[in-house]
């Protein structure tokens, strides 16, 4: 989108302030109420938040972990933005993510024996994208052909996908050498290359590139505009002669494919194997993050960083201060509540202003 060259009138300044407030106020409120709960538990909230920031952002090791965590979050966010902007609510992220992860974990150790590392990594990623995209075909076709609500179907396919991924690990790709059911491991040296001698793998670069490309695709290409028309007004899409059915399937495939890439990159960069019953459940975690960013691919980078700091720092801070690990999830929950509240108040404000 071309940049607005209009001067900053008071009205526009107010809108900008409101845009920042819509994001900042819920975050601050969530932190404040979270702090109050810590006080009730007899802990010092400032110590807790201090540990979070120190560990998640300010310590070198923690920062590297944060960057590593950002990679899957960003790729999933990219996948969700494509779908949500097209008005398609793909909530099947977890199933798509895990299936892709298992496929990568099964392929990589098998291929690395015969193929060079680069080729192995690329084949794994491409295959995972294809598998995740294929898994999205059923909800996509049901939506395109019969108009069946994809929220329900994709969510159900997600449960099936996570279970199926487990079945694959336990029955077909199980490494006989281990007692706990898991796939064969990809050796650390064969995984995604690290960046400049740090522990951060290059998946974060892939993720950043993908999320920026997705943003450009949505705002600067005919394909992106078509998707947004389908999302904003499906009747107008039919009226304009867009192939709504085809676009629906393409959107689903692209969305699921990017989420699959997230699973693949996480295995190739961090774990090297999939253990049975492993499910980080990032798929649904990223949904509020994408809403916070209002489906903007650039803004989502900041939120992914914020979430990663909270997750990495929160784990360590909870341990050090002696509160349950799930305290971070509670902060996320509070954030959602206040987000919805602020959104509602903003809606009222706009209505009053007659905007």
């Amino acid at each position, binding site marked *: 989108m071309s940049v607005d060259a209009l001067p900053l009138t008071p009205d526009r300044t107010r809108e900008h302030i409101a845009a920042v407030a819509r994001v900042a106020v819920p975050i601050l409120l969530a932190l404040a109420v979270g702090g109050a709960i810590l006080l009730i538990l007899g802990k010092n909230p400032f110590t807790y938040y201090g540990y979070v920031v120190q560990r998640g952002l300010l310590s070198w090791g923690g920062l590297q972990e944060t960057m590593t965590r950002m990679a899957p979050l960003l790729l999933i966010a990219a996948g969700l933005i494509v779908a949500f902007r097209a008005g398609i609510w793909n909530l099947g992220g977890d199933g798509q993510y895990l299936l892709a992860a298992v496929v990568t974990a099964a392929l990589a150790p098998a291929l690395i024996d015969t193929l060079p590392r680069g080729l192995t990594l690329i084949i794994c990623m491409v295959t995972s994208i294809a598998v995740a995209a294929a898994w999205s075909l059923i909800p996509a076709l049901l939506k395109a052909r019969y108009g069946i609500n994809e929220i329900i179907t994709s969510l159900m396919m997600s449960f099936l996908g996570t279970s199926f991924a487990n079945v694959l690990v336990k029955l077909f790709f199980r490494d006989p050498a281990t007692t706990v059911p898991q796939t064969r491991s990809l050796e650390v040296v064969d995984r995604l290359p690290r960046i400049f001698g740090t522990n951060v793998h290059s998946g974060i670069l892939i993720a950043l590139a993908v999320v920026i490309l997705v943003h450009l695709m949505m*705002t600067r290409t005919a394909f992106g505009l078509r998707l947004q028309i389908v999302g904003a007004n499906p009747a107008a899409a039919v009226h304009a002669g867009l192939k709504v059915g085809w676009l629906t399937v393409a959107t689903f495939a692209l969305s699921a494919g990017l989420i699959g890439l997230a699973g693949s990159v996480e295995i190739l960069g961090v774990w090297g194997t999939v253990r049975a019953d492993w499910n980080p459940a990032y798929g649904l975690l990223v949904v509020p993050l994408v809403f916070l960013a209002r489906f903007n691919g650039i803004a989502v980078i900041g939120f992914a960083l914020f979430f990663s700091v909270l997750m990495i720092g929160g784990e360590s801070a909870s341990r050090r201060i002696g509160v349950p690990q799930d305290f971070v999830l509670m902060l996320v929950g509070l954030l959602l509540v206040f987000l919805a509240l602020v959104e509602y108040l903003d809606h009222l404000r706009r209505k009053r202003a007659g905007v």
Partner: protein
Amino acid sequence: MKMDSLPSPLQSGEMTRIETTPNAVGSGAGSKPAPVATVRNICKRFPGVVANDDISLDFNAGEIHVLLGENGAGKSTLIGILAGMQQPDSGDILIDGVRVRLGSPRESLDHGIGTVFQHVLLVPSLTVIENLMLGGSWWQKLARSAALARFRELSDLLGVKLDPDALVGKLSLGEQQQVEIMRALWRGEKILILDEPTSMLTPQGVRDLGDVMRRLRAKGVALILITHKLAEAYELGDRISVLRLGRVVGAILPDERQQMTEQQVTDRVIAMMFGATMPTDAADAELLLGRAEGRRARRLVDRSGAPRLRATQLSTAAERGACPLHDVSFDLWPGEVLGIAGIDGNGQKHLAETLAGQRKAASGTIMLDGHDITAAGVPARRRAGIRYVTDERLGEGTVGTFSVATNLLLKEIGNEPFWRRGMTDWTRIHDHAREKIEHHDIRTPSEKTPIGKLSGGNIQKVLLARELANDAGVVIFNKPTYGLDLQNTRLAHERIVESARHGLGTIVISTDLDELLEVSDRIGVMYQGRLVGIVENGPEVELEIGKLMTGQTLAAGTGS
């Protein structure tokens, strides 16, 4: 002579609107009771507009108070304030002489003010009685027997017969409106507001509504009727107030009203609506009155050559809530305007969509300049020159949240020169938009303004600019002036006639017979999905069209 107020197709071409003697009105005009509701010095501003500017009006029991005015005159805002949907910036609302605050639709209902909006706001999948019970508080049990008692009470009051267990979705629009009226009166029958209630109704529905309104008036309800139609105002109104640019510019009081003939009333109203600008707006006045016969200069269409568009035995598949086509055949020659008349919901929508390519024909063929285009989709037909100006301007014609610039190119996405190899050239798109905005006199703050923020007339200008651009050969207009004010209506008519003069084949689908009589060369009539006849436009064709519209010639077997 609006089609939806046709009294009976058997009456002569010189039509009276709703059958009632003018003397029957004005029952509340005798003594001078205190008004049920009063608005005093109401002001309401929106960014850039003063919607209501110091409005003061009285609403009396047993009186039908008509509010007349063009689009943007402030009628809807005033109604919104009375219905509790908007709050005035200043001014007072008095109910039974007591100052009240109407902070929400519920408070408004609590004061006995019920509103029936232009579009039906019922849940189609629930029954009549379920819809009526929806207004209760959440902690209350659904008391069906009490609700049924109230339902019967109101049925008697309105003089209507409805099955309380019928699904609302299966009722006709007229019956749905009766349910809406019941809901509006559910918590007390003090004041009833009707916002353009006849615009979606059949002639029978209009008659029934007139009866209902008269019954309510006799029971002492204060009725407020918002309308564009002068004939309705005359037939039903005891008191007429005219709004213009947010002000009350004049009124006809009940005492005066009783002494006046229809001609006198219309003359007075037009003088108020157009004020000093009367002479220049003579054409608007003619349009308002439906007396534009003088401008019906027919062109001679040369039908010796090959038709531009030929539809042969088009049929479409039935679909819930829409009337499909049955064996529709017609020819359209270059330079011709073919009007399509008919009561709403007789297959017009399917006809337009099938011709535009956004709906598949189940059988039949469409030929354009001798080529079969039945299988072509919207983009291919657009390239071949077929254009469709839809009546659902915001529903499907545009994407409300997208800019004017994007909407101007909604049907060209991906095409050169605005897109090159799929990449968007926003600079070029915005330049193109500025040019169109200038050329078509589209009133918008900027080409980047979301189109949903423009007025109906300006959205229509965007659609016209988009559809009439580059090598149009056949243009289908569906209700081209629906919801537009007089000036924009006239502009749209001029555009239609003008483009036909340049050799376009034009199809105008409308439920407004006057409009068709003004712009068409021939007029076809749709009845229950069939094109039951096509007549040459000329003097005295209204009677024939009226008969066709109600299916009376079907028995004679003239279905084409």
